[in-house]
């Protein structure tokens, strides 16, 4: 995903977060005092979303055609503050992200505007030999939200509660997934392509005027 350098820098500065992990500068540090933490943004609305760290700084814009940002490192010692701007609507964001946490802030359609939903994850499945797939559900209209390999009856993810996620390790194979609500297929299958070992992927179930829909992204860290 391509972002302008200035935007990335602004976001990084915004959250005062670039790898300032506490290190003990003894002869031989053996690791940080606390784990890294990350945040990303998803625009599930029908118009562009601007994420603004501080007034006057350039926003990070998430167009509807490219709705998922990279994961940006943040300091878990202080809250992540900013503003989500969608059209004329502004939502204040103030999140405390714990060490080891990956937070996904989703702008979800809500009436004529948006609401923000933060879904938090403390992954424990890092494995360079497998692919990792997560299923996020922020769509209340889909009962017993489940995901299946297209054309199969077995569930990859079953009845994921609203505003939460499930994640699992899978073999790095070519995969298409089918959304299932109330045990019935909804919408077309989503082709995730050839999954790669060591990569982490997300499929996000979001609401829309036209009904439930799926977004997908690779969980890529910003450098």
């Amino acid at each position, binding site marked *: 995903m391509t972002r302008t350098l200035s935007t990335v820098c602004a976001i990084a500065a915004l959250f005062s977060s670039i*790898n300032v*992990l506490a*290190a003990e*500068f*003894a*002869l*031989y*540090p*053996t*690791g*940080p*005092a*606390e*784990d*890294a*933490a*990350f945040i990303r943004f998803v625009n599930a609305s029908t118009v562009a979303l601007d994420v603004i760290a501080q007034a006057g700084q350039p926003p990070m814009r998430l167009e509807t055609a490219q709705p998922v940002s990279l994961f940006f*490192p943040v300091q878990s010692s202080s809250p992540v503050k900013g503003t989500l701007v969608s059209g004329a609507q502004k939502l204040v964001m103030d999140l405390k992200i714990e*060490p*080891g*946490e*990956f937070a996904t802030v989703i702008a979800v359609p809500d009436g004529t505007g948006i609401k923000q939903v933060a879904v938090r994850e403390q*992954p*424990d499945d*890092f*494995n*360079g*030999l497998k692919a990792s797939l997560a299923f996020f559900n922020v769509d209340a209209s889909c009962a017993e939200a489940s995901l299946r390999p297209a054309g199969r009856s077995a569930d990859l993810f079953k009845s994921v509660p609203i505003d939460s996620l499930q994640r699992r390790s899978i073999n790095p194979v070519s995969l298409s997934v089918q959304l299932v609500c109330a045990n019935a297929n909804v919408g077309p299958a989503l082709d995730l392509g050839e999954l790669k*070992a*060591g990569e982490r992927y997300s499929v996000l179930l979001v609401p829309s005027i036209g009904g439930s829909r799926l977004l997908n992204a690779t969980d890529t*860290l910003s*450098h």
Partner: protein
Amino acid sequence: MPSSVLAGMTLLVLGESHMSLANHLMEPLQANLTQQGAIVHSIGACGASAGDWLITKKVDCGAEQKGNGSIVIKGREATTTPIKDLIAADKPDLVVLVIGDTMASYDKPVFPKAWAWQNVTALAKEITANGAKCAWVGPAWGKEGGMYKKNDVRTKLMSAFLSTNVAPCTYIDSLTFSKPGEWVTTDGQHFTVAGYKSWATAIGGALAKLPADAISNKGAK
């Protein structure tokens, strides 16, 4: 001595404090690999974690050794060098990384797995993207306690984490080279000359057993 798979190969060996001081790992490992016929360039940076080799970072001490030359010890002028620049300069077939103890947070209650994943995968990907193969040497058993609070449980966890996250690098499991406490340490984490000699011999032996396609991209086309 029979011909080694390493003969004629160019090796870049990077590491933490084990590779940064005299009478530590750098000299016996350099000697072992050179004796196998490899062209070896070793660089150590005290306390450097995997991610530090993506940037230039000042460290408190370091060392460097090339071929049959003597080790050059560095003080506070020591830095890491971005791996991309090192690969461009040396054009190694194989990058050998001796990184583990700097990332285990032995003295902290929680292992920083998200940070470790970020660091380890970034370095492994960068090496691969720049056309070299890599082998990652994990931590060896030390002695419980000491100034770095090294302990067997976290050492095992660090090694297990690396074994499943360094791909496409090949993992060299140092825990199979000795029994806990077998190699005598000076501070719980750093070994005596004899310990380092044993570790170097074991690493050299493990690298020599790797298949040719894990050592070099040359001839793989």
